[in-house]
């Protein structure tokens, strides 16, 4: 029977498939890689300790500090004593259980979804979990990667397995090639705009088509990262030469004979030509324009030159009500042009857009001008490695010269667990992944955009069409 990439990875990880009333349709699946960070693990370790349980595979588990850390100081207490306690708890738990930790200041530290791939921890065909919904990022390597809750983190720590029911499958095919100025961020925002914020709930998405195959690994990670913003369990892209070239020579990637054996297996990881999917979505890359969210969920998104919609544009009463609430919170009028909308904050970074290519794209715009008066613009590289590479290319100088702040790596203003928080009424052009109410600060308004669009907004002081800067 023809199978999908998801089917193949799923099948290869079943440890126990016995069906009882206690397991139902659930299978016990093996987890190859477990990434952990400070926010969603303390209670999991406490649960283990309470029961006297051990970490089954510390060698499959890797930790970093990212969510609660300062982007101005390497001191663990820079954001207060509770943040410090959480960071210290992670360090203590890693030491106790022999888990490798990349703490603040370490060469390999970074946002968990940036640093993991860049040291080769994520490989095709793997199952990867992390107590973080943006674990979907790692699907860019053809790995089945998904976010889990803290109880499940504890389950994986104790058993290196998870109980899972198989999700439905969705194929999202993006045909053709991207127009100039259109990025991976615009692709994924356009997809979410098309299928909706819950459009892929209960599904694993496989992204394919010429426009996807043409993407670099960094761009593929941006696409897969926001799968969760369409409600998907995970997002996958079949591994190809781009994937193999990225992985070869990375620290944790297989070497020598192991590399040869791995390549033989990885090359088999693709959906069969006649594999069937529960849902198929098609987009034409040529139709995608620079995307900007106008509302309070990522599905509320338009092209930069489209007018802000009116509630009456939506037929579904729930969508109408959501649009009403979103317009009120965002302080927008139907029909308003985004180009007229002033921003006073710009955030460039996050697990969605904190990689080196994102820094380059933003810098290419930043060097064309100065940050507008009254705008605070920060650039937060996704990892120490990204920061160093950017500095080697003197991108930091371009940003600073243009009036951006160049910060230390971390999750930062994507969710504001540190002191990078917006104030009531602030309006931010952000390269992050969520425009929820209060996400970047109580009463603050977030518009999701690509790195180039964010940089353009910083220079203009309002949203601007990045294609005018090419």
């Amino acid at each position, binding site marked *: 029977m023809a199978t999908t990439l998801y089917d193949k990875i799923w099948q290869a990880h079943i*440890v126990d498939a016995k069906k009882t009333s206690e397991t139902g349709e*659930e299978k016990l699946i093996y987890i190859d890689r477990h990434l952990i960070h400070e926010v969603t693990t303390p209670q999991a370790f406490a649960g283990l300790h309470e029961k006297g349980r051990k970490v089954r595979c510390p060698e499959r588990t890797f930790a970093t500090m990212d969510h609660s850390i300062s982007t101005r100081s390497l001191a663990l207490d820079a954001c207060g004593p509770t943040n410090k306690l959480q960071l210290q708890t992670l360090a203590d738990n890693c030491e106790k259980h022999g888990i490798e930790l990349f703490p603040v200041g370490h060469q390999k530290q970074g946002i968990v979804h940036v640093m993991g791939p860049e040291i080769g921890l994520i490989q095709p065909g793997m199952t990867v979990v992390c107590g*973080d*919904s943006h674990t979907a990022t790692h699907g860019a390597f053809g790995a089945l990667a998904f976010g*889990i*809750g803290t*109880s499940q983190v504890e389950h994986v720590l104790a058993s290196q397995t998870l109980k899972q029911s198989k999700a439905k499958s969705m194929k999202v095919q993006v045909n053709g090639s991207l127009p100039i100025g259109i990025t991976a961020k615009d692709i994924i925002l356009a997809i979410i705009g098309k299928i909706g914020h819950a459009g892929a709930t209960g599904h694993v998405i496989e992204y394919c088509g010429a426009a996807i195959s043409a993407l670099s690994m960094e761009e593929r990670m941006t696409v897969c990262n926001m799968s969760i913003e369409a409600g998907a369990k995970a997002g996958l892209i079949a591994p190809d030469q781009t994937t193999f070239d990225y992985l070869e020579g990375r620290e944790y990637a*297989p070497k020598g004979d192991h590399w040869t054996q791995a390549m033989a297996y990885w090359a088999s990881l693709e959906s069969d030509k006649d594999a069937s999917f529960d849902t198929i979505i098609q987009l034409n890359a040529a139709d995608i324009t620079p995307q900007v969210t106008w509302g309070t969920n990522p599905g509320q998104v338009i092209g930069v030159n489209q007018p802000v919609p009116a509630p009456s544009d939506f037929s579904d009463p729930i969508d109408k*009500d959501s649009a009403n609430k979103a317009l009120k919170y965002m302080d927008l009028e139907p029909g308003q042009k985004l180009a007229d909308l002033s921003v006073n904050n710009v955030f460039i970074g996050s697990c969605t857009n904190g990689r080196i290519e994102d820094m380059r794209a933003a810098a290419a715009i930043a060097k064309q001008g100065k940050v507008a008066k009254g705008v605070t613009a920060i650039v937060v590289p996704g990892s120490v490695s990204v920061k160093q590479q950017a500095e080697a290319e003197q991108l930091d100088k371009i940003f600073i010269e243009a009036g951006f702040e160049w910060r230390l790596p971390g999750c930062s203003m994507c969710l504001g*667990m540190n002191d990078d928080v917006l104030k009531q009424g602030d309006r931010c052009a952000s390269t992050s992944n969520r425009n929820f109410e209060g996400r970047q600060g109580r009463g603050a308004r977030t518009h999701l955009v690509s790195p180039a669009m964010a940089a353009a907004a910083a220079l203009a002081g309002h949203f601007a069409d990045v294609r005018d800067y090419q």
Partner: protein
Amino acid sequence: MTTTGINIHTGSAVPLNQANVDTDQIIPKQFLTAVTRSGYGKHLFHDWRYLDQHEQVPNPDFVLNKAQHQGASVLLTRENFGCGSSREHAPWSLDDYGFKVVIGTSFADIFYDNCINNQLLPVQLASEQMDQLFDAVANDASVQITVNLQQQKVTVGELSFSFYIAEQHKTNLLKGLDAIGQTLELDAKITEFENNLPEWQRA
């Protein structure tokens, strides 16, 4: 973690008539720096519930603060409840506040699993059925909603709706099983799986 089972629950409801309630709304990030599982209830729906950051001034317009909904243990909501972040602090805060059951049109996947793992019962009903529940609560805020997990039924006055729940989730909720303990009984199978991996896949 090991918990006690749930079967039949009866209580009044808070009608949160809104779609896409994300976990940032359920419990904002500033409360995620704690290292314990308890004490999140007072921060539940913080941004909507309080007019100030220090939680001193309740927002009188927010449904959770209405006098007629005090003591409720059932939350009514709409589609895609619990979307966004995987934070298990969301069900922890709902549970700590006193909710035992959340009834909505649909739930985000990770949030749903997190509910099951915390003995918080997520009940999924059709949109029209939700309309009727919201109407019932609008007519009488003290109306008692009974959720019978064994029979997979929601009953309010004359109304009675069946709901679907996967067999394994039902069993876990009814019996309050220790999921990790169950899995660790399969240790030999896990070891066998590991031993069968090609060498390059071994950690």
